């Protein structure tokens, strides 16, 4: 699956994302700089990596969400192309309006960097088909602003439509309904705070993040919708 990893000034999980993508999905996965006007021809997955784009100034993800490449990412998403936003990438997706809600400061003001347990709430998405429903994953988090918030109507809708894909077993940041990852209405855009790209090899302590990439391989592009 042809993969493009977007680099913003301040992205610091870009190399991890590239490594994970090359290992699991696409040996030719490549970086795309944020000032580019378009994505490489034939891009199927856009990966927005973690980090601190623009130093998290103004709000985390806010400036990156308004950078030139994001117009192409939005078009890609509207066409049904896959987009995966991890950590800062999730913040960029909410700021860009590709996912609902917002990420605010962790409830306790601490930066949390630790492996956490996630429950797979919906194993019928393009990103989770390789997991079993209810499967518990160990995947690291590393964020100061991962407290997911949306108005009650949006939360109710996310829940009713099965769009809460991952939930924390022990909520580290105060996220409403323990939300760790959500998909858009069409199911082709996933945003999550934990870092699956840091859990793709035994050597890293966990392989549990690998399923997200494996899932994308088994689902044809035309079947990106939530099943």
């Amino acid at each position: 699956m042809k993969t493009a990893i977007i680099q913003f000034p301040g992205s610091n999980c870009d190399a991890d994302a590239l490594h994970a993508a090359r290992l699991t999905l696409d040996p030719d996965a490549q970086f795309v700089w944020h000032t580019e006007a378009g994505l490489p021809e034939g891009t199927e997955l856009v990966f927005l990596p973690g980090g601190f784009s623009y130093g998290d100034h103004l709000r985390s993800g806010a400036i990156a969400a308004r950078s030139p490449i994001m117009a192409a990412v939005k078009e890609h998403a509207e066409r049904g192309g896959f987009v995966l936003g991890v950590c800062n990438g999730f913040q960029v997706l909410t700021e860009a309006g590709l996912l609902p809600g917002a990420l605010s400061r962790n409830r306790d003001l601490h930066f949390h960097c630790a492996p956490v347990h996630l429950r797979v709430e919906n194993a019928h998405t393009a990103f989770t088909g390789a997991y079993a429903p209810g499967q518990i994953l160990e995947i690291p988090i590393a964020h100061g602003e991962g407290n997911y918030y949306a108005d009650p109507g949006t939360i109710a809708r996310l829940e009713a439509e099965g769009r809460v894909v991952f939930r924390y077993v022990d909520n580290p940041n105060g996220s409403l309904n323990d939300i760790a990852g959500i998909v858009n209405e069409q199911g082709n855009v996933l945003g999550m705070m934990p870092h699956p790209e840091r859990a793709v090899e035994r050597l890293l302590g966990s392989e549990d993040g690998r399923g997200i990439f494996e899932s994308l391989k088994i689902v044809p592009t035309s079947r990106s919708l939530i099943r």
Partner: protein
Amino acid sequence: MPTFTAKVFVTLKPSILDPQGRTVERALSHLDHANVSGVRVGKYIELTLSGERAEVETQLQGIVENVLSNPIMENARWELEEVREVAGA
């Protein structure tokens, strides 16, 4: 063309947990300011804009809504003041 200074105030909505505000409030309470409550920590942003007032106001409103604040979790208000050139300055 007139020049204006805009002062933009951004605060978290009342429904959003403000851990910074709460921490400051607790600190004040420990410093014997127990009568202080409702502490909210926000952002203050200054901008200089030039143009006709009506156009500048519309532009500023757009900037504040679409870039400087996130309406999902923040409230924002602004003040616009014309900069008067001081003779000889």
